[in-house]
């Protein structure tokens, strides 16, 4: 299992577009927003939590279709499905690799982008915490969407259509945590709910993803 994780990480680094691309996309979104809404610090500070979370979500979405597509094309997925490790473990490791290459860099870099959007005071702390707790859920849910669409020719667009509605609760609780944190309000409730979504997704969704992969390999 660890071998699979290491292989995916190595592939992501060698092929490029793993670590860098999502982050660059996040940066571009952050840069474009002030052009769209104007440079006033107050406005930016007010919308920063939401923009940063939506940006993280889109950056995550960008690399989802690569999770299984390459392995499906070159036959590795067939071989993994007949290998001695259970498919549930395979999809979990795939999600973990996706998080390490996409989610984790976002968590680390988000405070820097927060500066660009004039995020205030406590916001930096809560942004990092909420992204750290929430992005694993994004990866796991996205892996499920990728598993559903793995055999499809034009799966990319459909993948977004399937996955984005599933991201709604995570986005709401994540952005709400940052917003409340910025305004100095109690953040316990949304943060707990966010953690709950992540925990439940990580625990349960791999079974659905593995089932979808099995169906798609038939």
């Amino acid at each position, binding site marked *: 299992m*660890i*071998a*699979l994780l290491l*292989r995916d990480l*190595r*592939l992501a680094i*060698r*092929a490029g577009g793993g670590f860098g691309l999502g982050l660059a996309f996040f940066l571009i979104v952050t840069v474009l927003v002030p052009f769209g809404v104007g440079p006033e610090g107050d406005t930016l500070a007010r919308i920063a939590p939401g923009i940063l979370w939506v940006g993280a979500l889109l950056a995550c979405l960008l690399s989802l279709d690569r999770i299984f597509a390459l*392995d499906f*094309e*070159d*036959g*590795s997925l*067939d*071989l*993994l*499905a*007949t*290998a*001695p*490790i259970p498919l549930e473990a395979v999809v979990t490791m795939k999600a973990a690799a996706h998080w390490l290459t996409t989610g984790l860099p976002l968590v680390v870099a988000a405070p820097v982008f927060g500066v660009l959007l004039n995020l205030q005071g406590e916001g930096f702390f809560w942004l990092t915490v909420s992204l750290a707790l929430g992005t694993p859920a994004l990866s796991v849910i996205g892996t499920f969407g990728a598993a559903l669409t793995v055999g499809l020719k034009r799966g990319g667009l459909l993948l977004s259509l399937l996955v984005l509605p599933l991201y709604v609760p995570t986005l709401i609780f994540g952005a709400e945590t940052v917003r409340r944190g910025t305004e100095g309000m109690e953040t316990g409730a949304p943060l707990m709910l966010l953690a709950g979504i992540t925990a439940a997704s990580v625990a349960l969704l791999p079974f659905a993803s593995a089932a979808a992969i099995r169906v798609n*390999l*038939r």
Partner: protein
Amino acid sequence: MNAADLTVTDLAVSRGGIPVLEGVSFTLSPGRALVLRGPNGVGKTTLLRTLAGLQPPMAGDISMPADAIAYSGHADGLKATLSVTENLGFWAAIYGTGGFDPVLEAMNLEALCDRLAGSLSAGQKRRLGLARLLVSGRPIWMLDEPTVSLDAASVALFAGAVRTHLAGGGAALMATHIDLGIAEAEVLDLAPFKARPSTVGGGGRGREFDEAFA
């Protein structure tokens, strides 16, 4: 019947919900090889995928020892950006088998071991794909067109690897058109097993339940 045998009884397989083969029965004992023959589209790949557990059979029984099958499809499952050693090392770790140096030697890949898989020729890739079978350490090989894009020397190398595997108590099931010159191999022509419409689950006679569809 032996516990180490792969025994297939009255198997029916389907592709996209439509039956393609039915009544397939054979036994594959350790040390034996079976070559599947038949025109394109007869269902060789479908049969192999069903036996490998990638899709459920429509009818019939498959009995074999647990975790016995190493499957090799049309594609090799190689990663272009990983070196030969890394590719093999990954599968060795997945199957929990240790060293793969003898395998590199057997498939004549030693000189290439630091090359990226993407820079190999088609035949070299195929050899690497077959090396993966050796690494898996599993007794029953299921090979779908294993000799595609191999030159004569590589085919001989491959046939040698299969023979060694058979001599070591393994078994092989192959879908291939060319004669590998393996003495132990029997041939199974799939054409007679082609599913006739309306016998499997259809026409109101077979399974009654979903008759409207079959």
